[in-house]
């Protein structure tokens, strides 16, 4: 499908890290079904690193590919590194996205960020306790 790059097609047809994590350290949700795309990211953190990243996505081909790519890029990274995953980098790693699909790459990075912040918030709350 020339609208989408080979990388997008690969991540769409064989998405990495689909699923949920039981008792995740952080959860991040972005988008909503009304606008057509919704992503939930689950993370497991160990020694400040993303030991595991999983996602579930409702959305178009790009949304699924972006989620998959973000999860793959994030896995194994430190939290600081993972927070530096920008929509632009995600789109580049996917070999580009059609203009009207840019917002999907925003959502992916945002959902991951939310999950990390969720973790950091909980940790802080836990530390404070």
């Amino acid at each position, binding site marked *: *499908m020339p609208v989408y790059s080979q990388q997008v097609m690969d991540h*769409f*047809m064989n*998405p990495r890290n*689909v699923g*949920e994590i039981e008792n995740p350290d952080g959860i991040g*949700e972005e988008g909503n*079904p*009304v*606008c*057509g*795309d*919704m*992503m*939930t990211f689950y993370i497991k953190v160990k020694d400040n690193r993303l030991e595991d990243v999983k996602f*579930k*996505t*409702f*959305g*178009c*081909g790009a*949304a*699924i590919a972006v989620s998959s790519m973000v999860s793959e890029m994030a896995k194994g990274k430190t939290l600081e590194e993972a927070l530096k995953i920008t929509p632009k980098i995600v789109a580049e790693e996917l070999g580009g996205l059609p203009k*009207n*699909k840019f*917002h999907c790459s925003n959502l992916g990075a945002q959902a991951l960020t939310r999950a990390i912040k969720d973790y950091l918030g909980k940790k802080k709350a836990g530390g404070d306790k």
Partner: protein
Amino acid sequence: MGDSTITKVYLDNAATTPLLPEVLEAMLPYFGEAFGNPSCLHDWGDRAREAIDAARDQVAQLIGAAPEEIMFTGSGTESNNLAIKGLALAQQNKGKHVVTSAIEHFSVLHSARTLEKWGFELTEVPVDRYGVVDPEDVRRSIRKDTVLVSVMHANSEVGTIEPIAEIARVTREKGVVFHTDAVATAGTIPVDVRELGVDSLSLAGNQFYGPKGVGALWVRKGVRLIPLLDGGVQEGGRRAGTENVPGIVGLGKAAELAARHMVTRIEHVNHLRDRLLIELPARVERMVVTGHTEHRLPGNASFCVEFIEGESVLMMLNSRGIAVTSGSACTSKALKASHVLLAMGLPHELAQGSILFSVGIANTDEEIDYVVDAMPSIVDRLRQMSPLYSKFTRTSKGGKHAGL
């Protein structure tokens, strides 16, 4: 079930249909030695002029019109633009109010929006949950300054056929010009402009096995129209530009064949369409039919699949060689849910899961087997990825599903 040799199934005949070999055959001479310009006063011009006159007869025959009332255009979109803008502008000193339905094709809706920019007012009449316009709503929407009503003959996205003759009774009573967008119906189901009682009707060749790049607009004799394309005096001065002679010849031939084979075509595609309408929801839970059950375009099998999004279904189907459309994706490429489904009252998230199988005359039972077999695992796979589906399974699985 499922013939293992099948690798490609085209079920997107609502987007465009394959050209019939007989139609191409009819066109070929006009790409060859009969390449003349119909406006020219010599043998080459004569041959081309005779060809488009013959095509005009064929198209007129298809819709029960007089040949001189037919104009050829470059697309269904152009026909609709010409009708909406041309009919409204021609009457603007009578009034500046136009009425459309909420589920018109964008070539009608956006033309009406352009009229708004030019100082017209626009009323969009609603539809019910099957996509049907109530003629009484049209009546109520007509004001003293209403100069044009436009309601499509059928909506290709959900297949619903509108009560055009009833609406025409209202517009005639009120003395308002009535255009109908018959792009989805002309050449597919019987269309007779006198029986429908409309004043203007648009159609497109590529919807019934004719060529792309050619459409037609019928306007009842005596109804005034401001041209969209100014220039030479082609098409009676109402549509300037060198005529697409081979395209027009192809449209004529397609019209002739459509008229001749209409009954058998309808039987064939409705048989396959009915299989999809019945077998898919039987195999895929929470896959619901959209549109009207009875007043429905032949070949149209439109659904919404809960918890997943249409484009991803479409892409998965494509990876299995099956071509379909999601919502109005083909014409809008927009990310928004189809305005048609929303106007029918479907919730956004359900509308996102729209998927349209449109059967054509070349499709077979084996192909339908193949599609019915492919669909459940695709839906399943996408639902396994969907956070909406996990929420649904976590909560009461037997609960009421959204919408419809």
